[in-house]
């Protein structure tokens, strides 16, 4: 939720320089300072005394952090003094923090991790919109990291952009701290970065809302679960820590999907944030089969309205290609004939019938045969897209690892190689102009087009 940097920099800097008045905020122990910075604003924050953290990641002292387009809070365990400079839409100190519960939860998870003979917890976080799920996922991951562990953070909310662009679902081993200015941080797909980059496994679903094409969404999460669990089995650092799985807002009506996720990711702990009814229902459902706990919704969670969310999404796309002000990247534009483009989209007619697709929930899932066998018998997951400007212009496309000559089945199961934007399409000349992250020819690979569009 926390990302940063406006177009840039020189002009904004001057404005800031004029406003040199720095404000000092003193935060008492176990309290947090909440702030909101609009996209056109820029805020500089420095910890001048004590220790402070943003969503579990401790800040360095006397170093300026820049925020733009962010709603966040800074928590201090023992009290601290901050200095800020610039503009904020709102800021206030609150003693009413859920951090105590989060800390308890972290210690409880740590207890499981430490208990001999027990498997490290795979944690599923459920809750309503704006209940603080993502914040909690981030905090739990950060805390595990601070204890020298390496959690695997899984994002199943396609409207979030976690180490990727919106529309994606990702599994990312968290081997170093998050970038608090960026929200998440860089991946190995960018150049040299100030913090250690992360290496996510990325799948592209292509829509903001999971109900737009629930079938394709489910296919993607079970694929992601397969990859994530396989890695977990062999990577001891991750195996000893477990997974933290963040989700889109799910409720009672999504109970089948929740069950799928539980089996796809071998979930052993479910945390329900601020949804008593869901908690009670799940208790009946999973009675004793896994640990189920509830946590109140954080009072500090601000509503992320749609406009703000769209801006975050657009920024995530822009940063994928152009980097950030601190680590800018230069993408590459190529012109190619239509014949080099092979695009698919999630097959229509898959909309939101939750009952239709039910991949082997109870047979300890995710073995390959179950899924492929299923794929044959069911209708198509993806369908070909005709190359024309109506379909492609400004489309964000996921370039898959699958070859463009591969079977549709293979394509539908493939993970993401990278993203591109069709920035021009000429139906007469049969040419597209395509924005690529990496210089070179357009990869000979299949692509998926979803609903996301992007213009520079």
């Amino acid at each position, binding site marked *: 939720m926390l990302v940063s940097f406006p177009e840039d920099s020189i002009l904004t800097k001057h404005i800031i320089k004029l406003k040199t008045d720095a404000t000092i905020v003193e935060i008492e122990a176990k309290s947090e300072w909440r702030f909101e910075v609009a996209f056109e604003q820029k805020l500089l924050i420095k910890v001048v005394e004590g220790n402070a953290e943003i969503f579990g990641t401790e800040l360095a002292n006397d170093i300026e952090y820049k925020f733009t387009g962010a709603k966040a809070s800074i928590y201090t*365990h023992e009290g601290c003094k901050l200095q800020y400079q610039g503009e904020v839409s709102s800021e206030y100190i609150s003693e009413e923090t859920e951090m105590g519960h989060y800390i308890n939860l972290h210690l409880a998870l740590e207890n499981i991790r430490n208990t001999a003979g027990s498997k490290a917890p795979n944690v599923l976080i459920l809750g309503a919109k704006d209940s603080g799920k993502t914040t909690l996922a981030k905090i739990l991951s950060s805390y595990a990291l601070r204890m020298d562990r390496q959690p695997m953070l899984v994002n199943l909310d396609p409207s979030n952009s976690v180490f990727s662009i919106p529309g994606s679902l990702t599994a990312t081993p968290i081997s170093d701290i998050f970038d608090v200015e960026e929200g998440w941080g860089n991946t190995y797909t960018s150049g040299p970065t100030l913090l250690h980059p992360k*290496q996510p496994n990325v799948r592209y679903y292509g829509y903001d809302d999971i109900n737009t094409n629930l079938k394709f969404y489910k296919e993607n999460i079970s694929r992601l679960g397969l990859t994530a669990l396989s890695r977990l089995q062999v990577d001891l650092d991750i195996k000893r820590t477990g997974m933290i799985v963040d989700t889109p807002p799910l409720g009672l009506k999504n109970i089948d999907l929740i069950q799928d996720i539980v089996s796809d990711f071998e979930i052993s702990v479910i945390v329900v944030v601020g949804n008593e009814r869901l908690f009670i229902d799940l208790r009946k459902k999973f009675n004793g089969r896994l640990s189920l706990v509830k946590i109140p919704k954080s009072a500090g969670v601000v509503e992320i309205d749609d406009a703000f969310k769209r801006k975050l999404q657009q920024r995530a796309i822009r940063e994928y290609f152009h980097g950030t002000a601190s680590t800018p990247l230069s993408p590459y534009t190529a012109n190619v004939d239509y014949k080099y483009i092979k695009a698919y989209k999630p097959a229509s007619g898959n909309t939101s019938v939750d009952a239709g697709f039910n991949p082997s929930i109870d047979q300890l899932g995710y073995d390959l045969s179950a899924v492929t066998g299923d794929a044959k018998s069911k209708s198509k997951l993806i369908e070909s897209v005709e190359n024309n400007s109506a379909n492609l212009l400004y489309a964000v496309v996921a370039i898959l690892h699958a070859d463009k000559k591969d079977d549709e089945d293979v394509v539908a199961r493939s993970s993401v190689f990278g993203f591109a934007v069709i920035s021009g399409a000429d139906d007469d000349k049969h040419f597209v102009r395509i924005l690529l992250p990496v210089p070179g020819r357009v990869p000979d690979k299949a692509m998926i087009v979803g609903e996301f569009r992007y213009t520079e």
Partner: protein
Amino acid sequence: MDEKDLQNIGEDFYTNMEDLTFNSRPIITNLTIIAEENTQAAPYIVKAVEKRIDKALHTQKLFAFYLLDSICKNIGSPYTLLFGDNLFKTFTSAYVSLDDPTRKKMIDLFKTWLTAKNSSGLPLFPQEPVKKIEEFLIRVSSIYQKRVTPPRQSPTPTSTPPMNTQELINLINSITLLSREKLRVFPSDTESLKKLDVLSKVKQVIESQGMDYTELLKVKTMLQDMYKSEEEALKKLLAVQQQQQSPAMNNMSVPIPMPMEQVSVAPEHPLKRQFQQFVNTGSNPLGLAPIGNLLVPPKSNYEQLFQKLIKVKLIKYKRQRLPTKQFLKSLLSTPRTTTNTTTNTTTNTTTSTTSPLKNRPLITIDLSQFDINSSTLLKNTTTSYDTFHQLMFVDKPNKCAQCGKRFGKTDREMKLRADHLDWHFRVNSKLNQLGNSGAGSAGNSGLAMSCKAWYLDDVAFFKFRDLEVFYSDDGSNITTNGDLHDNKGTNTTSVSNVKHYVPVPESSLDMQTQCGICRETIKGQYDDDLGEWVYKDATTGNSNSGKVFHWSCFSEANPQVNNRSVSAGIKRKFEYE
């Protein structure tokens, strides 16, 4: 001889030192003789040696120190005084950049400085820097112990050992190190985990309050027992390890022709290296008194220790922030069922009557009280805050000034920290190098670099190990797909082999254009690999203006670009021109 000549001697000396890439007695002897014959150039020679220590590769710094040592011990004044001026800085800044085995050698070297005398019977170096180095080593290294206490036959309380809390802290550090190593080999060894927690608590108690001599002595005895049994355990572990490894890998000790005692080259395996330190050297690195033959089971060790601690002093404990009091209370008050199935050797102790500690292993930050159930989670207990504080801050006192990441106090974590700082340094200099012409802006905000790569496929992701890349020599340099990705069909986009070309736009009728800088014609050529018409060795400077430049002209005009891809900053620059 004028100043200039002397300076030249110093420079020659520096050049000669460049041969010191391995531990060579002839070279060191030779250079020592040169230094002896040119004492009038001593200030320059000293500078040269210091510079060499600073500039040499990490793997070669030690040899330069051996040269320093040789010069000082064989010649003495004025070299000893001159080196003394910067000795602390020279020593410590090198020390932090070295790996553990080399640090050990540095410590061995330093120990000889404590006892070495010059010709007039005075200490080799000025006392002040030596003292500071010693304090530094005590702080950063658990294998360094102050003024090596002479081994005693038995720890009789009647002897009057130099007893101070620092000694106990060092002891605790050593046990911690041993336990951590054990834990690394057997991650499931929860006993060690618990022990680690106990140790860190005990340490706090010792640090935070004055104990009298007899109390300290009791604690010390306990700790020594503990050390002994941990060491035994590790030796056994190592024996198992050695059986599993090829015999050739063992005993890889290479005699080194040095003024110091013989040092063994540590084998590659980081685990083994640690073990080697304790076991293979044969010596007791802590200079601990050998304790009786009784191999006391570790559990009863810390149980006893605790009971003693409690009896002795803990109640007096008052500082609020620190968890100990709270922690002990919880320790005493929660006779929870434990997962422990092994037998508890309990104790004949005369102390403790009603202690519920009897039947449970002495844990520590009792994480088991943090159940995964809703009511526990909703409680706001001081215990959890204190536990959190202990784990996140007290156990990890070293905060990185650049990114806020914290590191603990063990040798291993200090090493990780040094690597981490190195990494910051490499990345920062790389970013600066890429963006150093950003007008006025600090570092890197002006110019862009581009070496974006693709995501890994499932198989490569499955095989990827984050930490291996981290601690590789140049983790910062990884642009993924290269060596880590063996998948066919993946573009390997390392920065150096990026081809510079511009596709001929469809709108172009004559298939040629003019270089925007030198105005020469650039002709389109058909590229077989790409399957399209391109302007070879050309760039658009990434602007969308349609201008095309020779790559050479472009990079000449923008030297900072080198052979890297084009930057957004340059793009801006061109558009404004």
